[in-house]
């Protein structure tokens, strides 16, 4: 299966509020709150690290989740956010993305 790379869109606003990430799309004003696991994936979405690696390092290890279950959850999460333009998804590294958000 092809690798999947994810990067945060530049057309979003985000802030960490009490452990939850608030994310709003400037494109359609959709408002999301991400829980701790989703926030970890979102913050690691640098466009260069494959999603599978992010899931292994940031979800399975830090939250002690079964790898298959974690991957399925991550795929759903990525699909949903990409539909709203909040995450960019590619089978190639996304080189124009920033390494990490400055002030989530």
């Amino acid at each position, binding site marked *: 299966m092809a690798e999947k790379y994810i990067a945060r869109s*530049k057309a*979003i606003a985000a*802030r960490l*509020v*009490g452990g*939850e990430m608030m994310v709003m799309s400037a494109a359609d004003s959709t*408002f999301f*709150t991400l829980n701790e696991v989703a926030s970890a994936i979102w913050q690691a979405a640098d466009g260069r690290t494959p999603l599978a690696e992010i899931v292994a390092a940031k979800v399975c290890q830090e939250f002690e989740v079964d790898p298959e279950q974690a991957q399925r959850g991550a795929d759903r999460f990525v699909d949903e956010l990409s539909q709203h333009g909040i995450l960019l998804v590619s089978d190639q590294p996304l080189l124009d993305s920033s390494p990490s958000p400055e*002030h*989530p």
Partner: protein
Amino acid sequence: MSLLAEMNQKALNLGLPISVHFDITYRCNERCVHCYLDHDDHGEMTTAEILDVLEQMADAGVFFLSLSGGEVLMRQDFFEIVERARQLLFNVKVKTNGVMIREKEAARLRQLGIEQVQISVYSHRPEVHDAITKLPGSLKRTIQAIRFLKAQGLKVVLANVLMVGNFSDQQGVIALAKELGVSYTLDPTITPKMDGDRSILALRIPGTDLKQIFQNQELVGNVEEFCAPPPPPGEDIMDGFPCSAGHTACYISPYGDVFPCVQFPLPSGNVRQQKFLDIWRHSPQLNEVRSIHARDLPTCSTCAHVGTCTRCPGLAYMEGNMRGPSTADCEKSFQRTGIPSANMLRQTGAAYAGPLIQIQALANSTPDHVF
């Protein structure tokens, strides 16, 4: 409860300033007759100072950032400020008159990923709009700006401040907003000038015109529901706060002064002298504002409208007492429901309780005093 309302509640519980209205200049290329600002530059913050404040606000948890003025584009560093704000992942709204926005500026705003642009329009007729802004040709340029912004796919809100000089053009402005494909919002509130001068309050539309607005289904939705008598307030209402000013929101002036809200000129600190977060957490003035619950308002806590009134504590402060009523909002509640506020009854008891007083007077008076 919506997600956004949940996050607001969370910010309130955590004491976070989730929204900031930041006027980056008071300078303006228009001279609107109802404006409450002094447009001279008395020492605006430098670019470096503003960028530093933006970082401090991001650290403090600010998410919603409104950049306003004055006219924001009077600052040559405006786009540098917006660019930094977007790098810091704020949700940015820009309030402008649009006069200086052409294709290039619209494209840059789109590129920077701002959430919304709010543009003031006072009439669909140039002779009325331009007379209010005192800038010939301003309506034409403003409408062009809206088209440029729309062409970029940006969300635009047309803000219509209503006053005696343009009230009759309200439907024309609504039609203009429809034609341009933008949202419409109206504001019937004229506030005193920041130096305390109340002369511009003469521009406020009279109560009868307010009533007309409140009965416009297009503006308020279900008129019967909107104008219904207020239900008796519960304990939650009496323990509640009037608005977000000082609780989850605040205002910063171009000189670095921090206030609870743009309409609440209670000096609470200055970011040139203190860190933003220190002011937010420890300002005695902000803490006093936060300490006031509905039950602490001497007059308003006894008012039938206490749970539904749009009472502005800032306007009350400008009338002399932040715990007192805001008469403009008393008028709104009255015009909306037909029920006088406690403040109205207290101040003009004879007028509102007229029939009872008259009966009393007739009974106790000799015929000579009846008329």
